[in-house]
């Protein structure tokens, strides 16, 4: 077979299969994008404890987000210059009573990047929920960070107020709980046994995300007066 035939054959084959795959990708794109958006909206609702997202259908989640959430805000962390998307959740459709904030975080786990959304109370002192959107940790071990066994304490409320001492973490994720009488006991989250590296990675990336979020909120007091007051009180 001549070189021209070989080149022509490969070019035609690549064009045919490339076009078919591109066509399929474009056809599926709206559905994939719709599912991704819906999942993110459910995560916002769950992280801010606006409702039990699992019990709501897609339309109810969308309505809740449209009526009781402001997802247009973006803050800037003055130290790193990074943009921090800010989601505000309100208790009422008139948007008069703030229920809490949510912000996305991203960092490296033990195997691959971990992506999620953390919700905090209006005074930024306690968590309202944690949702893991992406993770590739070991199924059954590190992968359990996306399950209620790990996320429930965040929904119950973990203290994440700015630490009093410099260098102290916002929260700790360890296997051994501190003495309940210890002032930092409320900042503790139980680690998943057998997933030490993933839990250490989660501790690091959540502390970094919280530090960035607090800096960004402090630098933008107009974002919310309640949060500004909380920072003034520190």
């Amino acid at each position, binding site marked *: 077979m001549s070189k021209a035939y070989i080149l022509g054959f490969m070019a035609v*084959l690549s064009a045919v*299969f490339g076009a078919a795959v591109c066509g399929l990708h474009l056809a599926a794109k709206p559905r*994939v994008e719709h599912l991704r958006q819906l999942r993110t909206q459910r995560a916002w609702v769950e992280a801010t404890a606006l409702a039990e997202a699992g019990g709501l259908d897609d339309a109810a989640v969308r309505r809740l987000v449209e009526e009781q959430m402001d997802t247009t805000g973006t803050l800037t962390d003055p130290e790193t210059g990074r943009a921090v998307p800010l989601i505000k959740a309100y208790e009422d459709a008139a948007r008069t009573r703030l229920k809490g904030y949510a912000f996305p975080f991203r960092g490296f786990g033990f195997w691959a990047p971990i992506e999620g959304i953390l919700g905090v109370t209006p005074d930024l002192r306690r968590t309202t929920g944690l949702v893991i959107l992406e993770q590739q940790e070991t*199924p059954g071990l590190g992968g359990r960070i996306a399950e209620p066994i790990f996320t429930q304490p965040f929904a119950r409320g973990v203290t994440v107020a700015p630490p009093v001492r410099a260098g102290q973490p916002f929260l700790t994720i360890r296997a051994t709980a501190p003495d309940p009488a210890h002032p930092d006991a409320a900042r503790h989250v139980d680690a998943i046994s057998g997933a030490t590296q993933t839990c250490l990675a989660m501790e690091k990336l959540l502390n970094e995300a919280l530090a960035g979020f607090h800096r960004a909120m402090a630098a933008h007091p107009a974002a919310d007066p309640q949060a500004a007051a909380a920072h003034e009180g520190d």
Partner: protein
Amino acid sequence: MPKRFADTAGGKAFLLNLWQDNPVFRQVLGICSTLAVTNLATNTLFMCLGLTFATALTSWTCSALRHHTPRQTRMMVQVLIAAAYVIVVDIALRAYVPDVHRLIGPYVGLIITNCIIMGRAEAFAIKNPPVPAFLDGAGAGLGYSGVLLAIACVREPLGFGTLFGLPLPAREAWFHPVTIMVMPPGAFFMLALVSWLGISLTARRPAGPPKGAAK
């Protein structure tokens, strides 16, 4: 008289790949994903469906193009065809079962490099007509699936106390997780056991004298 399925070229290839020449315990192919996805049966099932689809259609396409494919570039052609079908699987999982895609997504992409696809294309599809090639690929995919599901059906109950995500009966009363079963070493142990069992059952014994022959 119509030929029996087992006597046709495709039927013979299909059945051989399913059991006697099983790609996992006989040919020792596709081990990477065997170790990676078998701790949950649901993930295993979707991986197996994806691989069977990709292998059968890659074999069929390679066979259909065999008279036109330049010998020098045949492996490039096989990889290109396999990649296209694997991307189809990836898009389908992303669009219809996103939760499964989130868990096995990275391994789906690796189907492209799965030795079973290239192995069947090189060993069978480029020398045989499309229908037998399709059956050969499907047999290899289903043979791989059988072994993976057998491993998953041991690892998931022992590791999580569930099967296909459903709790086993009276789980609270008896279940104690065997953590190693959900970790990669558990897959190694199970693969070794299943391979041993499979090889023992399929061992080809030397042909002895026919029954009733004079001693």
